[in-house]
């Protein structure tokens, strides 16, 4: 029966004729604090296995956790950005279960008193409307280590010959953000799910507290889906699809589960409450580890840690420093810079919005800033195969180059050479100008000497100019430009030529 259902799941449109979908989204965000949640080990992605470990994050006997204050601050910031209340007194709890990549065989988490609770996020949808997602809570916890199952075909534990454990991730600070049930989205449920995770990602990125890279696992989404027959109040049995690791997958996973649930329910079956695994290739889900009995995590207050009591003053200080919501900021920037929808989208898609904004903040006009990043630098990045944000030039440096052009020190052509020099590691724009000797020759005495020399060399041209054929001056300008190796401002040379001829020299 299962295979029939999975071969022909219902479309979302078909599902919502009979059912109302209900979703609950749990998003784990790894914070980008310098150190781990409960010890001083470095929190970094991609280090040699088991190098960022100590007695505390390895859970060695006798070791004790101590709370990372920066992680608490990040949690409060996330809560405030999600319009949550901050709990006056919030505690940690132990969640007890056995797994080899969890060093203590319990996870320090929060249970009955999460640090922030009761909030919402107004999520922008594709059609310009917003959808309010209610947030139940966000709490702090520690990440587990990583198991690598070796020798099997699937990389999963079944069929593996042996497993390797990497505890670098053990103890990395996590914030788990849990929505209240999302109801009434109907046919838009998959879109709402994707848009929520996307908006959440943007908000957290704007706070600067996490890299929120779904591809690297610093943001992970578990999607709970259930269906209830239209007109009924009681929720249906839910399934939880774990670790969906792209925005597109969130949408696809919800869509697939809706269709699958409908298929099972309409053929008279029942949904099993279980965790499911999303397969990127096929876009389908499969049953995860079957839970024969409901897991009893035996939560109890963590006796090694004292409660956290954020002061009102501190919370208000953090609230006052909250950045604009990313989509509100985009709307403002679009107006301020006079961008078309398409130009804004290009900026966002090129991951250049922040770079351009920072360049503008450093004093450059938006138009020049945008042109440098989206045209020249985007091409450079593309050619050298790095992300735009990883180019070896800062927005401040780009702004400096733009200033040098507007002051007349550089021509556009020279400016590109200066940028190339910065990218090549030759120092700041001014260093490159000095080092390569690229400045426009703007010293009038030097230019005048060059002009006089060119005039002396071509008396026939001088005569033509005197006769009123000012276009002939082009030949002199060309000679001067050649003599100064292009580093003179041609317009300035032109006027100097006319001045010197008129002066009768």
């Amino acid at each position, binding site marked *: 029966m299962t295979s029939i259902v999975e071969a022909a799941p219902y479309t979302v449109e078909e599902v919502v004729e009979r059912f109302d979908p209900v979703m609950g989204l749990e998003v784990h965000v790894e914070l980008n604090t310098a150190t781990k949640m409960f010890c001083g080990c470095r929190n970094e992605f991609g280090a040699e296995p088991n190098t960022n470990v100590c*007695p505390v994050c*390895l*859970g*060695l*006997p*006798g*070791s*004790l*956790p*101590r*709370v990372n204050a920066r992680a608490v601050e990040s949690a409060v910031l996330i809560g405030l950005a999600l319009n949550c209340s901050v709990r006056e007194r919030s505690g940690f709890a*132990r969640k*007890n279960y*056995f797994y*080899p990549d969890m*060093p*203590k*065989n*319990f996870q320090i988490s929060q249970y009955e008193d999460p640090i922030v609770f009761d909030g919402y996020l107004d999520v922008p949808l594709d059609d310009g409307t917003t959808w309010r997602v209610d947030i139940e809570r966000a709490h702090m916890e520690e990440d587990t280590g990583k198991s690598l199952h070796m020798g099997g075909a699937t990389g999963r534990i079944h069929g593996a010959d042996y*497993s390797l*454990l990497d505890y670098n991730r053990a103890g990395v600070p996590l914030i788990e953000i849990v929505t209240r049930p999302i109801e009434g989205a109907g046919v838009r449920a998959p879109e709402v799910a994707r848009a929520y995770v996307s908006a959440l990602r943007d908000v957290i990125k704007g706070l600067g507290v996490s890299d929120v890279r779904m591809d690297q696992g610093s943001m992970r989404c578990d999607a709970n889906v259930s269906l209830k027959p239209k007109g009924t109040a009681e929720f249906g049995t839910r399934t939880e699809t774990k670790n969906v690791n792209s925005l597109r997958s969130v949408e696809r996973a919800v869509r697939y589960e809706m269709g699958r649930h409908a298929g099972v329910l309409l053929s008279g079956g029942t949904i099993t409450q279980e965790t499911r695994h999303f397969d990127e290739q096929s876009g389908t889900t499969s049953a995860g580890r079957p839970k024969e009995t409901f897991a*009893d995590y*035996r*939560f*109890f207050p963590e*006796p*090694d*840690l*004292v409660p956290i009591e954020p002061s009102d003053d501190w919370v208000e200080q953090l609230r006052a420093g909250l950045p604009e919501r990313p989509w509100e900021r985009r709307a403002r920037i679009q107006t301020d810079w006079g961008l078309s929808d398409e130009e804004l989208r290009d900026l966002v898609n090129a991951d250049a919005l922040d770079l351009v904004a920072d360049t503008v903040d450093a004093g450059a006009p938006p138009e020049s800033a945008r042109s440098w990043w989206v045209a020249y630098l985007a091409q450079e990045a593309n050619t050298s195969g790095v992300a735009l944000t990883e180019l070896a030039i800062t927005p401040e440096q780009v702004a400096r180059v733009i200033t040098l052009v507007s002051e007349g020190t550089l021509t556009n052509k020279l400016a590109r050479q200066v940028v190339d020099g910065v990218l090549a590691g030759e120092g700041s724009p001014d260093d490159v100008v000095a080092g390569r000797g690229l400045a426009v020759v703007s010293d009038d005495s030097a230019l005048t000497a060059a002009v006089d020399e060119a005039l002396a060399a071509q008396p026939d041209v001088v005569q033509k100019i005197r006769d009123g054929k000012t276009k002939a001056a082009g030949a002199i300008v060309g000679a001067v430009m050649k003599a100064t190796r292009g580093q003179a401002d041609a317009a300035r040379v032109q006027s100097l030529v006319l001045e010197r001829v008129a002066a009768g020299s």
Partner: protein
Amino acid sequence: MSSPDAELTRLDAAEIARRVQAREVSSVDVTRAHLARIDAVDGAEGGGLGAFLHVAAEQALATAAEIDAEIAAGTVRGPLAGVPVAIKDNMATRDMPTTCASRILEGWRPPYDATAVRRLREAGLVPLGKTNLDEFAMGGSNENSAYGIVRNPWDPSRVPGGSSGGSAAATAAGETPLAIGSDTGGSIRQPGAFTGTVGCKPTYGTVSRYGLVAFSSSLDQIGPFGRTVLDAAMLHEVIGGHDPCDQTSIDAPLPPVVEAALAGARGDLTGVRVGVVTELSGEGYQTGVLSAFTDAVRVLTDLGAEVVEVSCPSFTSAMPAYYIIAPSEASSNLARFDAMRYGLRVGDDGSHSTDEVMSLTREAGFGPEVKRRIMIGTHALSAGSYDALYGKALKARTLVVRDFAAAFEQCDVLVSPTVPTTAFPIGDRVDDPVAMYLADLCTIPANLAGTAGLSVPCGRAPEDGMPVGLQVMTPALADDRAYRVAAAYETARDSAAGAPFASTIPDPADLDGRAPLRSVSTLQGAS
């Protein structure tokens, strides 16, 4: 006791420190004398005390030589520099194994020092080795050690108490002048009483737990053993004080316990209000314990104290609450012993799954009492029983806290017998866990409330000749009061007897004609 230095092992720590720092004797000689004493009386295989699980003879002598050199150069690290000390084997030591007297940690060498251990080293004390205990500090007789029992120096057929039985017995027998232990429900004070030594459980949060292998995190506290009140106070000041590595550590100055011990020794308790806890005496208490306790209270009155009777009704529910809370925390704390990262691993032969290896290891690695408590604790925290067991125990704990608070409005310190009985014969209670648990009856309330308690010897029970302990309890952060009262009592006790109580401890080497004991080098090989 043929060694010319043998008398060094009868000196108290304060006197050793004075002589070493005055260069009347070297720390090396003192250390060598204690190592010889260990060699003479400790070997468990020959029927010795079995107080040590690991003796670090070479390291101890090297440390002592270093301290001697420093003193010769004019540097004294602290008041106890050059004095030997023993460490309960549930504290992490980077240069010695740490087994918790459990098979599951056999061979584990921590890569770090517990804060208390680090402070011992920084203060110039000389660690002699690691002492025996009930496995993971779970027990009151030291019979739960996976590496053998410990005998009571007063009578080798009796237990030394527990769980810090090794530290207590070693201190009593002159194997070390000082030792540190840990007290979760009485594990310092109870063996202190059983062996005629002074033992203190400081206020919770005043000695760092960092590096103490957790049994019950909200109750565990490291504390000192000595043969005199002043010695215990001096050691207390070395190991105590705020530690950022332990978030339950209190960021406040340590109560001035040495000053209090010195003040108390002048023998005046005028104006001190002493409360005798009604619920901690009477039926079920050994006659000789009650008579020794009554005599001690009379001495306090003679010293000027104002003695009143105080009722703490919730103390009767302290023990059942403790036997829910402590196992609950233990069931979680001990979950990490799963064969994956360190210690014992059983069944890793390619034919067992991860879960099976975990099970087989825990089956082989944990003793029966540890298993019993893991099961009780797992049950108490499970969804169906949490409210009825763990939740209810927390409420009882709150009542104990309130009773202490009310009692301390009426008096400065509370007193009781430390244990309802004297040390019982080895094997007497092994088949009766509840009888065993009764040994913690008087000490548990202070753990539940996080307050301080100290046991000082108050004579011997006439019926068995075994020492009896007087427990002095104080409010949190008023540990100094316990030292003052105990020191005053100690002075009066010794002047009445005409000799220090410690000098009356029989020499276990003389108790019978046992064969020479197992050597230190053999002991080291065993761990």
